[in-house]
């Protein structure tokens, strides 16, 4: 929680005072607008979110397992910016950090980075 508050603070400081060169290095904008608990502890998510996502991805793709906690759509549901409605864009939750870490992010070439627009699910008679 403390780490999170610091991260948010950093984000704010960066946004407001980047020009004033208050920090020597630019930091990513990590704005967590929705309160509440992530599906795993913050340090686990920081280190291993890609492993969790990849594991769930294969289970969904090959075995049709569509349970929620580690699905990409669940990440987006919480982490999309309230301003842009997306997890990408300069201050998007995913992109800002990936830009900072210089790790190419290609999920969004195919996946929808905005929550909502759910498909109507027909019911089998």
């Amino acid at each position: 929680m403390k780490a999170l508050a610091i991260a948010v603070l950093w984000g704010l400081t960066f946004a407001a005072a980047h020009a004033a060169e208050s920090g020597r290095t630019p930091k990513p904008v990590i704005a967590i607008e929705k309160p509440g608990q992530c599906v795993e502890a913050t340090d686990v998510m920081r280190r291993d979110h890609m492993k969790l996502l990849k594991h769930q991805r294969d289970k969904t793709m090959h075995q049709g397992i569509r349970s929620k906690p580690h699905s990409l759509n669940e990440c987006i549901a919480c982490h999309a910016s309230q301003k842009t409605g997306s997890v990408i864009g300069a201050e998007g939750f995913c992109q800002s950090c990936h830009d900072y870490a210089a790790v190419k992010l290609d999920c969004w070439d195919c996946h929808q980075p905005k929550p909502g627009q759910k498909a109507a699910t027909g019911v089998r008679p």
Partner: protein
Amino acid sequence: MSNNREQAQPANDRHPLPGEGGRGEGSNVSRRGFLATSAAALAGLTLAPGINLIEIAAAKPDSEPVTSKVRWGMLIDTTRCQSGCTDCVSACGKENGLGEVTKPRTDAQWIRKIDLTDLKSGHALSLPMMCQHCANPPCVDVCPTGASFKRADGIVLVDRHTCIGCRYCMMACPYKARSFVHEPHTDQNPEVPRGQGCVESCTLCVHRVDRGGTPACVEACAAAGHNAMMFGDLNNPESEISKRIREVKTTQVRADLKLDLGVRYEGI
């Protein structure tokens, strides 16, 4: 299964999944146990006549893997399909975020309407054509990366995470069912990720089927009052589709290829 690639697991770095076989054919004992128990539990309840246990058990919980007890398939009654009606095609485009086909040579088409006329008799037919969800899919045989695969329940899919866009599968498919995505996309349905550089085809609306739903085209056809498309479990002798296939003569297109198709046609 007469598949000679059953041993050839894709050499990608996927995490091993519990109970996963060659192409998702595998099944695990405890899952079977679970299904058997849930079916038994359901049997204890009073069911309305005609509602059948296996189909209820098939609406699996989200956390359960699909099994080969089910084989999803479709029966298309060409005597009911109306020439000029493209409701199935539009429903597919809307559901899967394909949009309108404006450039037919390159835009993705998962389902097409085809009109056929016998030149001698003048007898005309109209029918939708899409991936036939072959039990022995040539697209899977030729795929060099293992991206093209068949799920345990018979649905043939492309794993875009592994697809390199080589388009071998497009050449191998006898039904022209696959499309290459040429351009970037941003308006995907969150349930149907798709983007430039991969090959794709009809998924039988797998995202709906996994939640107990019906493919969008089947729903649209019924909504239009034509009822030319029937979706169901070919493995369950009591399902509507199996009963119908038992009663009337149905055709697999190019049955000579012996691909054991999941989509069958009536009246051709």
